[in-house]
């Protein structure tokens, strides 16, 4: 694992979910809430269109955090996020992060997921075991 110091930025990731990603995530996760997969339903409840699952975006945050530990799933010990903006399919998501603290064999990384200026996940905190 790379040497991590307070203030370091993590490599992060950039992903553009295609039009059908929410369908595949619904199948993989079991969350078939129609706001994610049915444009007519989404519009009927006042949304501009279908929106991404928040937990899909949290999955991307977890991926970016785990990548810091060479993708070893055992190293991610805790992840807390706040869902804020709505995420849209067919728009690039950027996950970025900065090391907040390094102590007692644990690294805390502050993370954000955003589509342009729209921060879909804010105040995310990932705890990685060194």
């Amino acid at each position, binding site marked *: 694992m790379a040497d991590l110091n307070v203030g370091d930025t993590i490599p992060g990731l950039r*992903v553009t979910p295609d039009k059908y*990603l929410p369908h*595949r*995530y619904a*199948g*993989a*996760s*079991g*969350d078939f809430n129609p706001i994610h997969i049915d444009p007519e339903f989404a519009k009927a*409840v006042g949304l501009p269109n279908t929106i991404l699952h*928040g*937990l*899909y975006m*949290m*999955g*991307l945050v*977890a*991926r970016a955090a*785990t990548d810091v530990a060479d*993708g*070893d*799933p*055992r190293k*991610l*010990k*805790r*992840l*807390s*996020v*706040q*869902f804020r903006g709505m995420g849209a399919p067919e728009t690039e998501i950027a996950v970025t992060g900065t090391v907040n603290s390094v102590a007692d064999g644990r690294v805390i990384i502050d993370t954000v997921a955003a589509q342009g200026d729209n921060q879909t996940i804010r105040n995310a905190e990932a705890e990685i075991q060194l």
Partner: protein
Amino acid sequence: MTVKTEAVGKEWPATTYEVSKEKIGEYARVIGLDNPVHLDREAARAAGYRDVVAPPMFCVVYSAPALGPAMFDPEVGMNFAAMVHGSQEFEWGEPACSGDEITTSAKCLEIFEKDGKGFYVFETRSVNQDGAEVVKGTWTNIVRGV
């Protein structure tokens, strides 16, 4: 209107989920995880796992079913039309591997009102067939205009 709080402390029946290699692979591919420990049994064993290991966030697959009855409980009384998933926390323990049988229980931790919004906080705890805690989840739903 104010939020009802009598469901605070309430617990719901546990659900059990058997983790499988193909379901882990499906989840890993959707998220774009390419570590072979999620896809290939030999790679997982070589890395010290009992079998193909689930990505940490796969926990939503096995723990969310326990939360359904809690969220739809009339005693909780959430207005789904005005609800958003506000925040989420997971703390992981023992990794979940293919073949594991994971039992999840759900509990209402808090219901309160702040700035005209209702906050509904639930906890799930998931343990494996050996009784080891796999993950603890804290799920916060926010209902506008309570």
